[in-house]
C-alpha cells in the first residue's frame, strides 16, 4: 500500500508548509474548491470512511446530518484530545504533518459550510501547540485559511483550544462543554452535536486522523480509496504500537491488517525472544485478546467477531513476564481517576473495581472477589451516561474472561509469581 498519512515524516522539516507542498500538499484543497459542497459530502460517504477516534461512525453520514440542519453558523471541531492510553498516532500527525490536518479541516469546513473551527488539543500535548499555531499562521499567510480562501470568497477561521488534562473530554459532548469554558461533563443525547453542538449550533466533531484522510479521498477519489484495506472499513489506519515489541511506534497500514502481521512483520516480534501473552488491540478501553486470537483483522467490523474492538488502534503488547492482574488493576485506576463523576454507575463502579483489583494485586484478595468484580461490571455496562463506564467494565470482563486463572492464583496464593 502506498503511504499517505505518514508520507514525508522522515524529513526533519516535514511540519513546514514548503515540505508539505513538496509532497503534493494542498492539491486536494484546490480540487475540492472546484467541487460543490454536497459533492464532497457524497464523495466522503462513498469512500466508506469511518471515524478514527474510536467509535468508527461513518463520517459521510455525520456530515450529511450536520449539513441538512438549516441553522447557521456551523462549527467544525477537531478532536485532538488523544487520551486513550496506548494511543499516540495523532501526536505524530500534529507534530510532523500539521498541514495535512489543516488541509483536511479546510476541505471539511467548505463541505459543511462551517466558517469557524477549533482544534481541541489535549493539555498533555501543549508542547505541540507552537508547531500547530505556526502551521496555522503559515496557512493564513498563503490564503488557505481566512476570509477569502484561495480567492474563492470562502471563509474558514481556525483556532487551537488547549484542554487541561481530562480524558473524558475526548467524548464529543464533553469536548464541546470544555470548549464552551465549562467542566467537561458529557451531555445527554439526543440532541446530537450535528444539530445542537458547540454554542448550540450544528457541529461536526472529527478525530485528527479522520480529518487527515479527507485530502486523500479527494485526491484519489472515493472509488480508489474504498479499495484500500478491508471491504467493510476501507482506508489506511494508523496503529500505535507499544509494550513488549522490538520496534514500537506508529504504523500506517491498510485497515484489516491482522494483529499478527502488525506485531511480527512490522514491529519485529516480541522483545528478547520471549513469548506473547496478551494484546490490548485498540487502546486500554478495548478488551484484551489472548495469543490464539491474533489473526484478527484489525478493522471496526471484523474485530467484533473476536470479542474486542478496534477503538483508537492503540496496540499494547504483553510478553510472558507480564502480570495481567497488575495491568488490569492499573487500567482500572486510570478509569477511576478519569471518571467525571456525573453518573453513579461509573463514578462508584470505577472506584469499586479499582479497589477490589488493588487488594487482589496486593495478595489480599478474598474468595468471591472475581464474581464480585463481574457483578460490579454488570451494573455498569450499558447503564452509564457515556462510554467511559462501558470501557471500564469491558476491560475487567476481558481480562477475567481470558485470564481468570491468574486472578484466582493471586487470591489463593496471596502473592504474584511475577513479583
Amino acid at each position, binding site marked *: 500500500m502506498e503511504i499517505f498519512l505518514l508520507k514525508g515524516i522522515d524529513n526533519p522539516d516535514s511540519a513546514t508548509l514548503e515540505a508539505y507542498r513538496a509532497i503534493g500538499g494542498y492539491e486536494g484543497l484546490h480540487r475540492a474548491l472546484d467541487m460543490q459542497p454536497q459533492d464532497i459530502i457524497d464523495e466522503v460517504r462513498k469512500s466508506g470512511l469511518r471515524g478514527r477516534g474510536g467509535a468508527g461512525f461513518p463520517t459521510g453520514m455525520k456530515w450529511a446530518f450536520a449539513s441538512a440542519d438549516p441553522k447557521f453558523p456551523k462549527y467544525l471541531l477537531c478532536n485532538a484530545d488523544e487520551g486513550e492510553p496506548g494511543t*499516540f498516532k495523532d501526536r505524530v500527525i500534529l507534530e510532523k504533518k500539521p498541514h495535512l490536518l489543516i488541509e483536511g479541516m479546510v476541505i471539511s469546513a467548505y463541505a459543511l459550510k462551517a466558517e469557524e473551527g477549533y482544534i481541541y488539543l489535549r493539555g498533555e500535548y501543549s508542547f505541540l501547540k507552537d508547531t500547530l499555531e505556526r502551521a496555522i499562521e503559515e496557512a493564513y499567510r498563503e490564503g488557505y485559511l481566512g476570509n477569502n480562501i484561495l480567492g474563492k470568497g470562502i471563509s474558514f477561521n481556525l483556532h487551537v*483550544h488547549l484542554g487541561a488534562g481530562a480524558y473524558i473530554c475526548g467524548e464529543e459532548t464533553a469536548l464541546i462543554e470544555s470548549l464552551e469554558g465549562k467542566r467537561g461533563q458529557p451531555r445527554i443525547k439526543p440532541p446530537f452535536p450535528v444539530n445542537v453542538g458547540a454554542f448550540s449550533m450544528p457541529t461536526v466533531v472529527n478525530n485528527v486522523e479522520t480529518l487527515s484522510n479527507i485530502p486523500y479521498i479527494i485526491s484519489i477519489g472515493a472509488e480508489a480509496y474504498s479499495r484500500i484495506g478491508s471491504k467493510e472499513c476501507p482506508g489506511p489506519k494508523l496503529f500505535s504500537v507499544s509494550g513488549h515489541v522490538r520496534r514500537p511506534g506508529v504504523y500506517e497500514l491498510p485497515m484489516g491488517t491482522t494483529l499478527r502481521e502488525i506485531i511480527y512483520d512490522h514491529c519485529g516480534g516480541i522483545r528478547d525472544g520471549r513469548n506473547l501473552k496478551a494484546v490490548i488491540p485498540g487502546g486500554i478501553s478495548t478488551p484484551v485478546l489472548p495469543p490464539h486470537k491474533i489473526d484478527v483483522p484489525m478493522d471496526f467490523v471484523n474485530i467484533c467477531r473476536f470479542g474486542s474492538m478496534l477503538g483508537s488502534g492503540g496496540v499494547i503488547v504483553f510478553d510472558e513476564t507480564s502480570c495481567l492482574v497488575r495491568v488490569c488493576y492499573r487500567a482500572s485506576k486510570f478509569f477511576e481517576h478519569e471518571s467525571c463523576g456525573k453518573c453513579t454507575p461509573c463514578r462508584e463502579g470505577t472506584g469499586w473495581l479499582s479497589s477490589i483489583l488493588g487488594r487482589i494485586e496486593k495478595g489480599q484478595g478474598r474468595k468471591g472477589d472475581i464474581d464480585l468484580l463481574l457483578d460490579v461490571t454488570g451494573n455498569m455496562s450499558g447503564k452509564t451516561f457515556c462510554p467511559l463506564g462501558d470501557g471500564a467494565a469491558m476491560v475487567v470482563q476481558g481480562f477475567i474472561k481470558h485470564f481468570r486463572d491468574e486472578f484466582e492464583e493471586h487470591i489463593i496464593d496471596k502473592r504474584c509469581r511475577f513479583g
Partner: protein
Amino acid sequence: MTALIEERLREVADRYPRREAAVLPSLYIAQEVYGWLSHEAIKMVSDSLNLPDAFVRGVATFYYMYRNKPMGRHLIQLCTNVSCMLFGGERIVEILKERYNLEPGGTSPDGRFSLIIMECIGACDMAPAMLVGKDLHGGLNEKNIFEILDRYE
C-alpha cells in the same frame, strides 16, 4: 493587572463567539502569571470574563492540569499508565522520592521540582516517559533520569 496581560486575556476571549467560553485559556494565562490558581488568579479570570468566582473555580478544579497550590521551579509530569508501567515508570517514582525527597503531588523541599503522576501522555513508544515543563523525555531508566534532571536547576 498589566496592560499586556489584559491584552492577552482579550485576545483569547476574541477567539470564541461567547466571551465566557474563554475560561480555559484564561486560566492558563492566570496560572502562568501567578504560578498557580490562587484566589487572585481566579479573580483575574472571573473579572475579565464577568463570571462568578465560584464558577471559574468549579471549572478549574475539574481539570487535572490546573494547579491549586504553588509549584516548584520545574514541573515533572511522569506517566505510570500501562505502557510506561511495563518499562518501570513506577520505579522512577521511587527514585525521585529517594533522591529528591519528591512525593507524587508534592514539591521537593528545595523547591526545585514538583511531581505529578500522569495518566498517559501519549508517549507510549518511548516508555517510560515524562514531561519536564514542556520538554518530553522518553526511555527513562535509573541512570539517565539524573542526567536529564541535572539540566533543570
